[in-house]
């Protein structure tokens, strides 16, 4: 049984009167790929933003290896986590290479040749063409932008990778091939991965563990088979059926 890398302990997130996340307990297993899924506004991105410290919980605590995340340790912890968002979040004033190496160069703990070697390794892993490294975000396709964003997230070789709908803005062909590649990369690296999606097929294909959310609450956590065969309630089976029937059309 895996220990949990990240845990939400009675975490509640409110924005004024709006509750984005009701008091929630959640364990994220080390070295596993966990998928957060659910309809829009269910709080799945909120969970990710709480873990990376972009949001501070209204009550409760987010723990990283048993240690509560706070203002004091967030900077160190962020460097042990990679974060990829839907349209890549690449800085427009930097080239692809500069985006990837920004944090490593800033920390000044790496030699120039180490950084270059890491960049080569990441290009190979994400199958990003080397000649694209000198390009700016606007000069890259959507799929390439996501590869660069993934490289940037992996630059410090983090323990944890957080991906917020990384394939959401891509066309179906690119999306399918990237799904395969992502799964390969996750398997190869053995990192703790949390990925947010609203696509059940993608969740089942990539994730070891699926967390289904609805209106700021976790409805069920388990494997795809658990969800299919022992649904916690009617919503779980409806959500799975709706997605499956779409695929079967």
């Amino acid at each position, binding site marked *: 049984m895996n220990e949990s890398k990240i845990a939400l302990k009675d975490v509640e997130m409110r924005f004024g009167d709006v509750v984005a996340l009701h008091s929630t307990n959640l364990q994220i297993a080390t070295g596993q790929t966990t998928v957060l899924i659910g309809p829009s506004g269910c709080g799945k991105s909120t969970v990710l*933003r709480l873990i*990376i*410290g*972009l949001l501070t919980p209204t009550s409760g605590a987010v723990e990283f290896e048993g240690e509560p995340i706070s203002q004091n340790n967030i*900077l*160190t912890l*962020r*460097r042990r*986590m990679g*974060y990829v*968002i*839907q*349209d890549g*979040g*690449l*800085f*427009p*004033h*930097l*080239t692809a290479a500069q985006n990837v190496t*920004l*944090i490593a160069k*800033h920390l000044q703990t790496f030699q120039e040749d180490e950084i270059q070697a890491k960049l080569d390794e990441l290009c190979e892993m994400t199958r990003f063409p080397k000649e694209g490294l000198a390009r*700016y*975000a*606007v*000069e890259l396709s959507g799929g390439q932008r996501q590869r660069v964003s993934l490289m*940037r997230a992996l630059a*410090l070789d983090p323990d944890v990778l957080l991906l917020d709908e990384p394939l959401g803005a891509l066309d179906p062909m690119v999306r399918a091939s990237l799904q395969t590649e992502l799964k390969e990369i996750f398997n190869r690296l053995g990192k703790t991965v949390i990925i947010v999606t609203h696509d059940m097929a993608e969740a089942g294909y990539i994730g070891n563990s699926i967390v289904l959310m609805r209106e700021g609450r976790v409805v069920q956590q388990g494997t795809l088979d658990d969800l299919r065969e022992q649904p916690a309630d009617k919503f779980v089976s409806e959500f799975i059926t709706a997605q499956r029937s779409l695929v079967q059309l």
Partner: protein
Amino acid sequence: MNHVSRLTFYTLSALLLIYILSSADAQKISVGSKRFTESYVLGEIAKKLLEDAGYHVEFKQGMGGTIIVWEALKNGDIALYPDYTGTIQETIVKSATPMTSEQMRSALAEYGIGMAGELGFNNTYALAMRRGDSDSRNIHKISDLRDHPNIKAGLTHEFLARRDGWEPLSRRYGLQIKPRGMEHALAYVALNTGEIDLMDAYSTDAKLAEYDLTVLEDDLHFFPKYNAVFLYRLDTDQAAIDAIRKLDGTIDEGLMTRLNAEAERTNNFTAATSLYFSEVENRAVEVVSQSFMSKLLRWTARHLMLVGISMVIAIVVSIPLGIRASRPGILSQIIIGIPGIMQTVPSLALLALLVPVPMLGISPTTAIVALFLYSLLPIVRNTATGLQNIPTPLRESAAALGLEPAAQLTKVYLPMASRTILAGIKTSVIINVGTATLAALIGAGGLGEPIISGLALDNTEVILQGAVPAALLAILVQVCFDGLERLIIPRGLRLAAASQ
């Protein structure tokens, strides 16, 4: 951004060096003058006498009205300037009753100011009309104006506000005329073209003859005597005071009118100075008149110094303020609000407000402070908006990457906002180049110097000598900034802007 900050540092150092060198000199004395021909001419003559006495003279000409020049004298920005007994009594000492020169001297001594002897002419205020108009309407005395309440009067702002000016005069004579305020040199033009019918003038004014004007008789003896005298600081070298006192009693009304006419005919105050020495001392004096190119170079260099120093300081101050103002909250509104209010103060008023401030006075420093205050808003506002416009996902990406807040700012936010910030700086510099022409009003020099003397001379050509280079300078700044944009703005941002 590194080479940019290095460039900024070198520019700042060079400008400061020029500033320090240009203001350091041992045997130096400053002469001031007000902003009309006679004052320029008397100042030039004083300058020549002091140079003969071995001084290095800085002539701060055309500084403005009485208050500005008087403040400059009190603060020690200038050592001496020419004024008139009537002005001293009414505006400086503010006495309701006529004073003897002894009373005046003891009143001035309280301010640490001395009064030299009378130069020999009375340049009193007068009301002037076109000669033909005066004859046809049969107006020869001021009291004749009572029957013409609808006459159009254009008076200087100083005359309108003086204790011996328009209000008490119209009360004394029982006049119903509603005057409007205008610049003295422009009033002559307006009177000549018939836009106005009546203006205030000085009795030794060369333009009275030039425009064929007639002076209305002061039949109730309202105007006090305006005998010309030099005022000087009591701490001035005795040798300098002695040099100035050579002027005592040497200029009568006829000579002063001729000197004024000579200055306006030749557009050259030094020509009038030569005339003075040839008539009074019967000696031909070689008063060196600078060539246009060397004057243009001096004006432009000074102009660039004013703009350069004020802009460098403005940039250094505004960007941090803009960064702070990009965050939400009341403090940000205050930070944007104060330079905003500053911008609404007319530049002339701002200069006048700064002159009495200790350490400032009539000096390039005051002009630099004013230009600095004017340059803040566009940079502060653009820095704040540029930062606010960075999309949230990108801000969050920078934070999630594990960059400290300071590194988020320098490595991501500021480069992303660089385009907007540079646009703000460009706007500031262009406004600054234009506004810096007003620096000449407080004797700080620059391309405003010919504009202001041109106004005093009513000479368009002289005005253009300053106005055209100033306009060209603004265009040059524009072109330079377009080039700078290519150098500073990251290529990725330019591509992004082009693709939208």
